Every structure is written in structure tokens, then in C-alpha cells.
């Protein structure tokens, strides 16, 4: 690899990914707030409100509490944003290949998705407030709860692909993108995939800690929990990380289940095709975010941490395993 290509891959593209994540993360946040407001019979803020919020937070004083661990407290917001952006480096955006395709696969993505939550936990513990400690404990319990169903969901898809395309690198998101799982399954496998999709959508609000799973932050219970001591720039970075993570998670879901492009249906040049696919990709993200976040967020109350553990350990895992079983039945031909 030439050094300028390396430069391009290591510096320019990640910055572009950061720009993409921040721009669309905040836009989707704005749309989410506006739609939620309309569903709650409110007017809601303008769509550019999240941009204003971030701009304001970056101008505010950055307070570091006396009994915190200052370096840990200040490093975590940056690490959180970086890990959220690095998920984007492994996910296909529009019909572009993942920026780091060939250097990591779905397993890395799975770990990277967990990293922002870990940063939040460490930041929470480092801030030395009882509310943040309670929030951090809750976040840890939540992570333990959703990791397993999430892993089941992702592994099921990959396992199916590995059966159909032996010898390929099926864990690469680029590969999954170009070989839609829906084409490889029969009827019971289709049902299984729908179930897996449901499980993945259900892990979305919990991964992103949104209602009904905003337990670590729970404003009315622990006054903002993990983030209670964060202010100014640090809080702004967490806010951005949240926005980027939303886009990243939604693009993983979109890549796994809706890897289709629509450019081939239009008679356009290659560049035009990229544009159309990119717009279509944004639409897909919007649909995933709307169903996984906005819709659930306005429809339910916050639940308790023991209930979360119960639901995800028992119910979601069982549902995920049923989905996996259906896919296995489909591919090994036990029934047909």
C-alpha cells in the first residue's frame, strides 16, 4: 500500500466517518425528537435543535468534580466517541465498501458496540457521585443482559451464510452486504430471520439506553445517573457519541438485514448510483431508528433493572434461540 493511500485510509476516511456520524446522528436525533413530540401531541423542537444543544454544551464550563479521578473522568467521553465512530469504519455506508473492510469483521463490531457503554460505566464510576455509581452498576447489568441475545442474533445470520458460502470470510460486513441472508433461506428460515430481526431491533433501545431502558440515566430516579457529574464539553462528547452510536447500530442492522440498493433500478451513471444508494441508505437508517427507538420510546414506561435482566436473559434469549433453531431446521432440512 502506498503511503498516501495509507494516509487516506487512516486519517481522511475516519474523519469523513466522524463527520457522517455526527451530521446524520444529530439529524436523526432531531427527527426522532420531532416525531416523538408529534406522537405525544406536542410541537417539539426544530430538527436542528441537537446541533444547537451540542454547540451550547461545547461553550459551557467543563466542571470536573473534586472527588473524581480527573484523567479517567475526562478521557472517557473522548474514548466513547472514538469507539462509536470506529463502528462506522466497519459498516458499509450506502453502497460504499466499509472503510476498514478486510481489517476486521462482525465480531470486532460486536465488541466495539459494547465499548461506548463500558466508557460510560468507567466515566460514571470515576465521577465519584453515588447517583453515577448506581447508574454505572445498572449499565453493567444491562450490558450483561443484552450481550447474549445480541450475539445469538448476529451469529445466527453469519452461521447461515457460512453454510451457504463455505470458504468465504462470512464475518465481514462487506460480504454480508453483498450476499443478503433473505436469499438463502426457505420458509421456516424466513420466519427465523424475522424473529432474529425482532431480537436485534429489541436490543437497539437497550444498547442505546433509551426508554424503556434509560435506566442508567433515569432522570427522575437517579438524576441523570452516569452523566450526573458531566457538563460542558465532556457532556457534549457523550451526546455526540450517543448520536453516532445510534447511526452505527442502525447501519449494522441495515447491513445485516436490508443490504439492498436501489441504484440498479435507475438508469444513472456510477456517481448517480452512489448518490441514490446513499439516500436510500439514509431512508433505511431512518426506518430502523424510527421502529427501534422513536416508536418504542413513546409507547412504554421505563422498566426496572431486575425486569430488564429477566426479559433479556430469559425471554429475548429464548426468542433468539427459537429463531436460530428455525434457521437450522430450514438449512438442515429436518422438516422439508
Amino acid at each position, binding site marked *: 500500500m502506498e503511503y498516501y493511500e495509507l494516509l487516506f485510509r487512516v486519517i481522511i476516511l475516519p474523519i469523513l466517518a466522524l463527520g457522517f456520524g455526527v451530521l446524520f446522528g444529530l439529524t436523526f436525533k432531531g427527527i426522532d425528537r420531532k416525531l416523538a413530540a408529534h406522537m405525544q401531541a406536542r410541537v417539539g423542537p426544530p430538527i436542528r435543535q441537537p446541533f444547537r444543544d451540542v454547540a451550547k454544551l461545547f461553550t459551557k464550563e467543563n466542571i470536573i468534580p473534586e472527588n473524581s479521578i480527573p484523567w479517567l473522568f475526562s478521557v472517557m467521553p473522548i474514548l466513547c466517541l472514538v469507539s462509536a465512530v470506529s463502528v462506522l469504519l466497519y459498516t458499509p455506508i450506502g453502497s460504499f465498501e466499509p472503510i476498514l473492510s478486510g481489517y476486521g469483521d462482525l465480531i470486532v463490531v460486536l465488541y466495539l458496540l459494547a465499548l461506548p457503554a463500558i466508557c460510560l460505566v468507567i466515566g460514571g464510576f470515576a465521577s465519584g457521585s453515588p447517583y453515577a455509581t448506581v447508574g454505572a452498576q445498572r449499565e453493567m447489568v444491562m450490558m450483561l443482559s443484552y450481550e447474549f441475545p445480541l450475539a445469538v442474533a448476529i451469529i445466527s445470520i453469519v452461521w447461515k451464510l457460512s453454510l451457504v458460502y463455505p470458504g468465504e470470510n462470512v464475518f465481514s460486513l462487506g460480504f454480508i452486504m453483498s450476499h443478503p441472508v433473505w436469499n438463502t433461506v426457505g420458509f421456516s428460515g424466513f420466519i427465523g430471520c424475522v424473529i432474529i430481526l425482532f431480537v436485534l431491533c429489541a436490543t437497539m433501545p437497550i444498547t442505546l439506553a433509551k426508554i424503556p431502558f434509560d435506566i442508567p440515566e433515569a432522570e427522575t430516579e437517579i438524576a441523570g445517573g452516569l452523566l450526573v457529574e458531566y457538563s460542558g464539553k465532556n457532556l457534549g462528547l457523550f451526546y455526540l457519541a450517543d448520536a453516532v452510536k445510534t447511526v452505527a447500530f442502525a447501519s449494522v442492522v441495515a447491513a445485516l438485514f436490508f443490504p439492498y440498493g436501489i441504484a440498479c433500478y435507475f438508469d444513472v451513471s456510477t456517481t448517480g448510483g452512489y448518490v441514490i444508494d446513499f439516500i436510500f441508505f439514509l431512508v433505511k437508517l431512518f426506518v430502523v431508528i424510527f421502529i427501534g427507538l422513536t416508536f418504542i420510546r413513546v409507547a412504554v*414506561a421505563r*422498566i*426496572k433493572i*431486575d425486569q430488564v435482566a429477566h426479559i433479556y436473559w430469559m425471554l429475548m434469549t429464548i426468542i433468539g434461540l427459537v429463531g436460530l433453531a428455525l434457521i437450522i431446521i430450514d438449512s438442515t432440512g429436518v422438516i422439508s
Partner: protein
Amino acid sequence: MKYTLPIGPIHPALKEPILFEFELNGERIANVDVKLGHVHRGIEWAGMRRNPVQILYLAERICGICSVSHPFAFSMAVENAAGIEVPERAEYIRVIMAELERIHSHILWAGVAAHEIGFDTVLYLTWRVREKVMDVIEYLTGNRVNKAIYMIGGVRRDITKEQIPKVREAMDYYKGLFNKLAKVFLHDKTIKMRTEHVGILTREDALKTCAVGPTTRASGVPKDVRQDYAYSAYADLNIKAVTPDIYRKEVVGDVYDRIIVRLFEVKQSIQIIEECIENMPGGEIVSEPKIPKLLATLKKAVGEGIGRHEAPRGEVFHYVKLDGKEAPYTWKARAPTYNNVLAWIPMLKGEQIADIPIVAASTDPCISCTNRVSVIKGSNKYTLTKEELHKLSVEKTKRRMRNGIL
């Protein structure tokens, strides 16, 4: 690992300042201590320097929600002390106003409770439907919150024939809405998950802690001033205290039961208002329309009086002693939350941190109404023990006997 977690005096879950000190075992509450006294306003002190008609407006401002209950109880206390008869029509108007207040207070509570469990959609829904009753209140009295409709010996504004259709229409609106609200609050899965078997107050504890209002009724104690000591127009109406067995097979005493009680009380209030409109007799609305004349009567009056009213949160109690001067000798107001403070302790013990806001909100607390005393002695002495209080009381009695007051 045990640790303490202070909630309050300023906390997003609390709408008013109060301090809970929790001793926690992980997420479980091992022990709890409640400390009041952060918003003592000295309203009674201010009242004892004013004449009863002025106090009426002060009483209205004890609570932002019970702005009918306090003047109601206060005017009953003064009427009791001075022996003033209230015209029958005024009694009916008073009851209509009190019940309108109950409707708006309970719907407001439902929204707050939903917010405490993170269900903001329901908050917006309930507060939107609450506007209808607020509109009716404004239409009848001219104001939304501080209605200023009570007067010693009656009310200040009549409900005319032309106004009645609008009230009826609002009542029909809520009757139509009842099933929808019941569906949201009693059948929603997540609300059930958060409220069923949470914050249980047993019947014994409810009796022991002298809880009042929906808090005690939800534990199966049929305690309601409107039923037990029927006053005003309630005496004509045959009111039964609402307990959760109206909907549920057995009484548990949890937050869910408190939702049931409040929801069905809204229904009961609608019935009461309709009945009052139907049977409202004609006649005067105030025993003495001329204020100077009324004040002269009150100035001459000597005696003690009490007024009890079933406010949306429970029994509100006012005591007045008139001694032939312009201002009353004593005025004592006791808001319902005062009785419900102790009930929090059995409710909260053994619950999780996540339950604190909804359990605390389930009694519909009104902290500033409750605060009647604030002890500031030296620099930081804050709590007084029972023995110290007893000593203070004995000292005061002796001092007053020496001065020939008692």
C-alpha cells in the same frame, strides 16, 4: 455493601423540596428517613395578623392544587366558630367546585406519576385532557388556579342556568374518556410492571400511620370525610368511600391500587357534580353579601371552630379560634400530606431505588402545604426528639399559665 443515598432537598424526581435519606443495600432500600422543613413559609403567622376574609385568600395560596380545599375548610371553621349559617345553594356550589378540583387534581397526579416512571406520553395525554376541566373552572369562577370563589358564609359567584350546559358537556367528555384512561392506566403492560406489588402499604400500617385520603383508601380503609362526617351538601348525596375492591378482587395496597382509587374517584366526582347540578336549590348564595357587615360580625364573634374537608389528597383540617378581635387568635391548617409522610416509610422499605419516585409520588405529596415548622436553633441543630418536643410543650403551657392566657 451498605451505603447512603440522599434524595433531595433538590432532586428531579421531587417537585418540591424534601429530604429522603436512604440506606441502601445494592438497589434495595434497607432504611429510610424523611426530613421536612425546607419550605416553611409562615402562612399561619401571616394569617394571625389579618382578618378572616383576608385569610381566606391566604388559605387559597397554601397549596397550588388544593386552592379550593383550604378555603373550604377554613370558611367552615370560621362559620363554625362564629355560628354563621350557609345558604343551601351555596353549599351545592361549594361542593361542585370541590369536586371539579378533585377531577383536575387526580388527572394532574396521573400525569406526574406517569412522568416518574418515564412514561412521558401519558403525561402529555393526561395533561391535555385535564384542560377541559380547567376550562370549566375558569368559565365558572373566572380563574384557573386561584379561584377566589369561597366567602365566609357562602360563595362569591353563582352558577347560572346558562352556564350549566357547558358543565354538563365537560362531564360527558370525561365520562366518554373514562374507558380510555382506564385502558391506559389499568391495562398497560409497562405501567402494570412498575406499579403492581410496589410500595405496599398494608391495612394495618395505613391505620397505624394515620394515613388519609386515597393513600389509605387504596389500602382498604374506607376513610373519607365526605362519608364519615358528611358536611355541606355532601350530606344529601350519600357518598361511599372508593376502595380498590371496586375493580380488583383483593386489596393489595400497592401503587396500582392507588391508581385505581384515584381513577374511580374521578368517576365518582363526575356523578356528584351531575347530581348537584340536578338538585341544586334556588336562593341566596351568601349569608351576608356586605363585607363590612360580615367583618363586624366576625370581629364580635368569640369561639373555636373546626373545618374538615376531603381534599383530593385526603382530609384537610383547619382550626380557628376567634377572641373578639379583628384577627383570629389562632389559625391552624393541616394539609393531608402531613398524615401521609409516615406512610412513606413502610411503603419504601424493601423496594428498589427505581421505585422511589413512583412510590413517593403515589401519595400525591404536597410538601410546602405540609411544612408547618422549621427548627433553626444555633447553627445546625435540625431534629428534635419526642422528649425535647414534650419539654418545649410543657414549658410553653407553664409560660402561658403564668401570663394568664390559659
